[in-house]
């Protein structure tokens, strides 16, 4: 295409700002992009949850035949029985979808995009164009992953960690063929998306805060998104490296991860000198920060929601920020606790054990601070608040079992058992998804200008909360009895027979939990069109996003961007009639900003008054490509 044509096309875009395509599809508005992330995330979440129900059916009733399986899965469910290879595929794709597509992109992508400009007082992201690219890479990646489930040899099935040699050798299992190739392509695209997003979040937070919004007046959500983006930016490239090496091993005959392998039906392979453990190091160097990439936005959202709905300042703002910082730093040097018994030098295991258990300290501080924030509050039970409380509960239950697993000596027994499944589903699965629900219920009025139905929200919360515990709590006991994870069925080992009733309980609870999500999905989509119209500030919140008009406009504020006068959590100040004191309301009684806030310093006058809509990145790109 010639430059002139590009010009013409771009101009056409520019002049028809409100056309359907530019408003809803190739949108560069951060609010629309956040909605795109959210809805894609929800669709992927439905898929991921549906898969878990399919393999739960297999685990609870291994000898039954469910003709529904044949309808849904074709040859993989022939005769109403789930194929063992496809079981592995379901487990793998369930993990991949939930970890990357729902809880990384769906959670962090949605709320970072929505809240960073709105809570900081910026017209848009630093680079709206990169932001748009980030979404489209994510969507392409999702589509590729979905396609990978439809190829003849089945999807990638070596577990979501795809350890080679299993994932590297096509002959080792059917899923390691085309399905695995597509998985790698999908993850590469996902990493690009996540890096584009991360660069944007960081530059926006650092450069585009409104007047008076010093770093220590930022809401904790923004702190969480900021650290999350830093973690992603530093760790995702390592996963890309790991994936590239794996691609080379699979297709170019290299031996990064392969050595001394004899395969049935093939013979001894030529590869020598590689190490499968190298992959594990590279993978978990991302993999562990990834846990916090998932969890920290949820914790940030919870801080905001709990403080708002307890009508009480968050207890220990600085401690909350410092603990986030501590968690972020430590998360980079604890990856080895996933590898205690992989044959890694035992001394290295000791080092990782010490570092891992240190990370429990900032996590404990966060829990105690949440509890103190609730203490003597005036708690409004909005669904968002309930989900936040649920998050704290899961964070405690799942976090404490981390102390067992982080201990190398105990990990000998517990590694890869159901105890691990229980641990991470509580601490990063359930609690992060509860953070996401809390965020959706809380900022729904901001996103769609309408309210969700509270009553349905209560039902959604209580059913999900109880069933999540019913699903994951008994798994601790299975793990302690030495039941390994990722087993297709337990009936071939008679020692595990005693757990069949528990497996049934878990499956029934999981089905009820799945049904409860129907309530949410109904509520979500129904309210977009028919929900009650939202007020300007429905939760009487302090933060800046509630000062923007209910109907979205490009650039967020019709006039000047408001100035910030105090910290975000000034609830129930004794000197005020109302129990909230928004950040953007000028101080009536005192002109000294120092006295008006909780020891927040004077606003930084060096902050630019008017933020450029387009960042340095975008203008540089424009110059490079010669766009007007």
């Amino acid at each position, binding site marked *: 295409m010639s430059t002139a044509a590009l010009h013409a096309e771009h101009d056409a875009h520019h002049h028809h700002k409100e056309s359907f395509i530019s408003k809803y599809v190739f949108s560069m508005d951060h609010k629309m992009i956040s909605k795109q992330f959210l809805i894609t995330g929800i669709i992927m979440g439905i898929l991921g949850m549906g898969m878990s129900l399919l393999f739960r059916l297999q685990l609870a009733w291994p000898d039954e035949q*469910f*003709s529904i399986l044949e309808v849904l899965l074709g040859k993989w469910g022939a005769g*109403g029985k789930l194929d*063992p290879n496809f079981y*592995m595929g379901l487990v793998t794709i369930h993990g991949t979808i939930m970890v990357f597509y729902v809880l990384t992109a769906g959670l962090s992508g949605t709320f970072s995009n929505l809240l960073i400009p709105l809570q900081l007082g910026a017209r848009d992201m630093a680079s709206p164009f990169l932001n748009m690219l980030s979404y489209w890479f994510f969507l392409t990646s999702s589509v590729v992953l979905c396609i990978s489930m439809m190829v*003849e040899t089945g999807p990638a099935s070596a*577990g979501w960690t795809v350890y080679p*040699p*299993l994932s590297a050798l096509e002959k080792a299992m059917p899923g390691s063929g*085309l399905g695995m*190739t597509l998985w790698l392509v999908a993850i590469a695209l996902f990493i690009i998306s996540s890096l584009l997003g991360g660069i944007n979040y960081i530059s926006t937070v650092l450069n585009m805060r409104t007047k008076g919004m010093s770093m220590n007046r930022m809401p904790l959500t923004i702190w969480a998104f900021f650290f999350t983006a830093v973690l992603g930016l530093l760790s995702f490239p390592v996963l890309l490296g790991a994936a590239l090496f794996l*691609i080379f091993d*699979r297709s170019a005959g290299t031996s990064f991860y392969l050595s*001394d*392998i004899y395969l049935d039906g093939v*013979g*001894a392979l*030529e590869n020598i000198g590689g190490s*499968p*453990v190298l992959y594990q190091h590279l993978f978990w160097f991302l993999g562990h920060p990834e846990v916090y990439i998932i969890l920290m936005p949820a914790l940030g959202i919870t801080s905001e929601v709990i403080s708002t709905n307890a*009508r*009480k*300042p968050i207890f220990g703002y*600085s401690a909350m920020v410092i603990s986030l910082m501590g968690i972020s730093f430590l998360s980079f040097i604890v990856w080895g606790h996933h590898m205690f*018994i992989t*044959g890694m030098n*035992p001394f290295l295991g*000791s080092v990782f054990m010490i570092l891992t258990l240190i990370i*429990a*300290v900032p996590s404990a501080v966060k829990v105690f601070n949440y*509890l103190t924030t*609730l*203490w*003597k*509050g005036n708690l*409004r*039970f909005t669904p968002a608040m309930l989900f936040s*409380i649920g998050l704290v*509960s899961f964070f405690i239950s799942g976090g*404490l079992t981390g102390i*067992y697993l982080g201990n190398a*000596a*105990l990990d*000998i*027994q517990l590694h890869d*058992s159901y105890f691990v499944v229980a641990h991470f589903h509580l601490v990063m699965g359930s609690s992060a998804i509860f953070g996401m629900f809390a965020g959706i219920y809380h900022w729904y009025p901001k996103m769609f200008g309408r309210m969700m139905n*509270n*009553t*349905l929200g209560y*039902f959604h919360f*209580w059913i999900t909360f109880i069933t999540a515990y019913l699903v994951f709590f*008994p798994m601790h006991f299975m793990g302690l*009895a*030495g039941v390994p994870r990722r087993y297709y*069925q337990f009936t071939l*080992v008679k*020692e595990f027979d005693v757990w069949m009733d528990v497996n049934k309980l878990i499956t029934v609870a999981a089905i009820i939990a799945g049904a409860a999500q129907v*309530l949410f999905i109904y*509520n979500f989509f129904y309210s977009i069109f028919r929900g009650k119209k939202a007020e300007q500030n429905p939760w009487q919140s302090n933060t800046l996003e509630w000062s923007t008009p209910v109907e979205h406009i490009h650039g967020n504020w019709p006039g000047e961007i408001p100035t910030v006068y105090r910290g975000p959590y000034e609830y129930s100040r*004794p000197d005020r009639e109302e129990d909230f004191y928004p950040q953007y309301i000028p101080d009536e009684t005192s002109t000294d900003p120092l006295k008006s806030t909780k020891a927040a310093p004077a606003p930084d006058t060096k902050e630019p008054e008017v933020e450029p809509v387009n960042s340095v990145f975008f203008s540089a790109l424009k110059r490079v490509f010669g766009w007007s």
Partner: protein
Amino acid sequence: MLLPFVAMAQTATDVVQPPKEFNPAGWDWAFIAACALTVLIILVIARAFDIGSLTEKVTGKKVIGWTKVNAWLAIIIIIAGAAGITYEMIYHGKLILLNDSASEHGKTIDSMFNWTFGFTFLVFCITEILLFWFMFRYRYREGEKALYYLHNNKLEVFWTIVPAIVLTFLVLRGFNTWSRITDPSKVSKDATQIEVYAYQFGWKARFAGDDNKFGESNFTFISGTNPLGLAVGAEVDSLMAELKRDISKIDILLASAADSSRVWQTALRDLEAKQNTTAYPEVYKDVLTKATDARTGAYVRNLNKDKKRKQTNLWRIAEYKKNKDFFNNAANDDKITTEIVLVKGKEYVFKFRARDVIHSAYMPEFRAQMNVVPGMATQFAFTPIKTTAEARKDKNNKDFDFHLYCNKICGAAHYNMKIKITVVATEQEYKEWLATQTTVVAPPVVETPEAPKTDSVAPATDKTVAVIHN
């Protein structure tokens, strides 16, 4: 950079849609109806609450006081949670492996577990009860104002220091336990070695023979009759002969590649012309694949790859053959077994070796686990302190057996990959069992005194195949 995409494009041609049978009569209509009904009921409930909230709006009266309902539900959660946990601990608590370790070091792990459980369960109870109690106690009350409480440094330092102290204690204890268990220098020199060998999908154990010495092994020696790849001269010779035969076969195929290609193209055209593509889908698919491979050159490429791989192997084996220390006949009297028998109170070192992918040797009753990694030697040392008979008595289950499970995802039959471990009370029982196991190479026939003495060694044809490769 293009390679993965090229590979993808090649494999993509294999994707032929399986024939789809649309047979609603075979569906479980009752199940589908039940699902549909559930969704319908949920939607009706949802609608009912919509109407409920509408009534609230119209009449201005609250139908349900949700603040109170939620607050009381929090109390119910505390009570129901406590009841549920108690029930679980009584009902399933007796099934968990705790304080009944079948190995010496397992006791230290169990005690470590008990300490950790003590601390964490205390914290769990306190924090969860506080969380839900606060939820009940501080529920929204009209006109009340929350406490404006920003921070309290003393309190925050306190709850940073206390977990830090507790964790320091746990770390030091864990560090000690872990190093004692895994430090290779702590394993005594007299410990008996057993090689545990993992493959898709099973385990084999190898015991040293009468010479108390393990024979060497290498993955290039693996063949149908030599599943562990042991350095047995005769086995390796026959493998080399087989490889040479294979290579010459490939050469013949390569020479006639053009002809084969023509044959398959003709067969394909034939099938398509006679419209037999749907009548014999399997045949058609096979021919289509072959014809496509031949046309794209994948057929020749794969043959060449295979040839090169076999030549490399042949060369590697030949290099090993030159090393007389390697082929020292130590492997001949090794015993490959499908069961592991240990003697109570004796120290063992399990040396792990994998054939294809990563497996994990998981022996929960012995509190032992180690990954089995291709290309990397791993080991785990432990001392069993409980015989199978004792464990059966303790568990009150006369069919109980110790097992070693695979605990790292390794393929379709991962869930059925295990080997039985029997712990016997005396060395005598173990020796009796070992005597029943065949050696890798059968010992030379014991000569009768009358026979004239010869210097010839056992001919290669005398060897028996110890283990049939499955």
